């Protein structure tokens, strides 16, 4: 019971597909400008994710390892076609709103990723729970991006006007605004995950093009990567007095004089 609880809830915050795993960015940025489109997309993804997880999990002993990816894609494409035909038949408006991003669910990394990482290794019950949890996490993420983008970008929520048109911020309805909102919500989710005891994702200095040039980068590289080596070095050279602070400056200052210009 405990494991199923964990499997179900991990998609919400800890392994949220958009904010923590950063999967399926393309479609989520495209449809998250309005709440209705996000809800339509989220429900479609939940449907496809749950059913494909169930089928793939029950076929996991039949599918040969060599051809598993084509097999997964075939299963997923089958369910996406079902969703597409259902939407075309009963909810044509949402189908038009999602446009090309609906058939693109086939290649959405979340679904293939869960099939590969979870459904192919776990029993049917857990796979269904995982699909449901991940799908709900995806929908929550889409809706929270869309809430900000639609409220401040269009001045409405689910199409109902809340803020007068002259006070709306156009950029939020554009892809650039989507990236901005995504970045900030990602920070919020990192914080939430940190509160749950999950380490926050960290960008290392190696990714920065000026890592070799900037003093901060050098210090940080030493701190993160060569901690053991540096400590040994200091221990072996016992003549050198080690100040309390780990960063040593040549002019004897323990802390950097940030008041002075360091260009």
């Amino acid at each position, binding site marked *: 019971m405990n494991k199923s609880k964990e499997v179900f809830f991990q998609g919400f915050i800890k392994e949220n597909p958009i904010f923590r795993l950063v999967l399926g960015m393309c479609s989520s940025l495209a449809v998250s400008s309005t709440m209705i489109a996000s809800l339509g997309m989220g429900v479609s993804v939940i449907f496809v994710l749950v059913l494909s997880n169930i089928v793939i999990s029950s076929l996991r002993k039949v599918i040969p390892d060599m051809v598993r990816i084509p097999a997964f894609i075939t299963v997923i494409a089958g369910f996406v076609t079902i969703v597409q035909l259902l939407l075309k038949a009963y909810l044509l408006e949402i189908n038009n709103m999602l446009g090309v991003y609906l058939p693109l669910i086939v290649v959405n990394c979340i679904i293939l990723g869960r099939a590969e990482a979870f459904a192919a290794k776990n029993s049917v019950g857990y796979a269904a729970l995982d699909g449901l949890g991940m799908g709900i996490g995806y929908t929550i993420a889409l809706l929270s991006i869309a809430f900000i983008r639609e409220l401040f970008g269009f001045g409405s929520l689910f199409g109902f006007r809340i803020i007068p048109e002259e*006070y709306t*911020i*156009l*950029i*939020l309805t*554009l892809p*650039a605004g989507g990236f*901005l909102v995504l970045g900030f919500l990602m920070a919020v989710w990192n914080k939430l995950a940190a509160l749950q005891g999950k380490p926050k994702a960290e960008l290392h200095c190696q990714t*920065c*093009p*000026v*890592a*070799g*040039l900037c*003093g*901060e980068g*050098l*210090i940080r590289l030493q701190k993160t990567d060569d901690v053991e080596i540096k400590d040994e070095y200091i221990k072996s050279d016992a*003549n*050198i*007095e080690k100040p309390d602070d780990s960063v*040593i*400056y*040549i*002019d*004897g*200052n323990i802390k950097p*004089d*940030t*008041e*002075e*210009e*360091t*260009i």
Partner: protein
Amino acid sequence: MISAKSQEQNHLVIASSPHLRSPRTTTAVMGNVLIALLPIVIATAFIYGCRVLLSIAVAAATAILSELLVQKAMKKRQTIQDLSCIVTAIILVLNLPIDFPLWQLIIGTIFAIIVVKAAFGGLGQNFANPAVTTRIVLVSAFASSFAKNTEPLARALLFSNSTPDPGLSASMDSYSSATVLVLLKSGVTPEKLRTLRDLFLGIQKTTAIGETCAIAVILGGLYLLFKKIIKWHIPFSYIGTVAVLSFLFGGFDMQFMLYHLLSGGLLFGAFFMATDYSTSPLTNKGKIIYGISLGILTSIIRFWSNLPEGVSFSILTMNILTPHIDRFTKEKPFGENQQIKDNDRC
């Protein structure tokens, strides 16, 4: 510079650079930038009236408050006293039209301080110039506020020898809101525009406040050069490249070239925004590459895109490329083994 304490104990202290520190503080640098901005503020306040001062006051107050709050929230050291947020606020206001709505200005200032500056680590670590980035964000957020071009007050026109617009009086209506660059783009010959003296003194229609008065911008820029706050490399290579390119592609027309130099945000951008320390290359060679690229980009946008002005876009583009320029123009430390490649060291 080894401190007295470590000398006493005969200890060698090992550290990475910087080993030499300039006695000049951030506060002094920013204070000098404020002094350099003063002629522009005074000139534009004279030309447009008190609205400029109101905008600056609102933006500065917002900037100080948001810097205070964001540094509290991020548990960073308070750096309000270094004046940098006030400089950002004033440059931002000078980048906007005169009747820019105050609530949009407040959103923009908060964006500049919190998103462009604080989110990337604060002053000195921001990869893009806050004022330029915010201007571009505001252009795409509130496009309609930029559509109206700013008209100088009547009292400023008293100094003009071409009241109100002799060359254009026939087509006043269609051109009444167009800036010089828009007119040049639509094929109006320079003879029909306001005289160069008007551009120089600041009696021109502009999109942004800061571009109005060329002579005030030049005065401020020369003060910065004289005080050695900025080096000549970026502004001169930038303006020089635009001059050469507009002379070549404007059909070897001296007047056309001068219009391109004196109107639009070129001078203001070259002296005050392209030279931002943390967003421009470190070495002199890198600065010249940066300036020439800025000039080429600005000219491309002005001549061959459907925008009349491209200073802010080119500065933001080059800000993003600055780390790469830095990497390729890195100076070799004395005595370094040339066979050790860059990648092995980092």
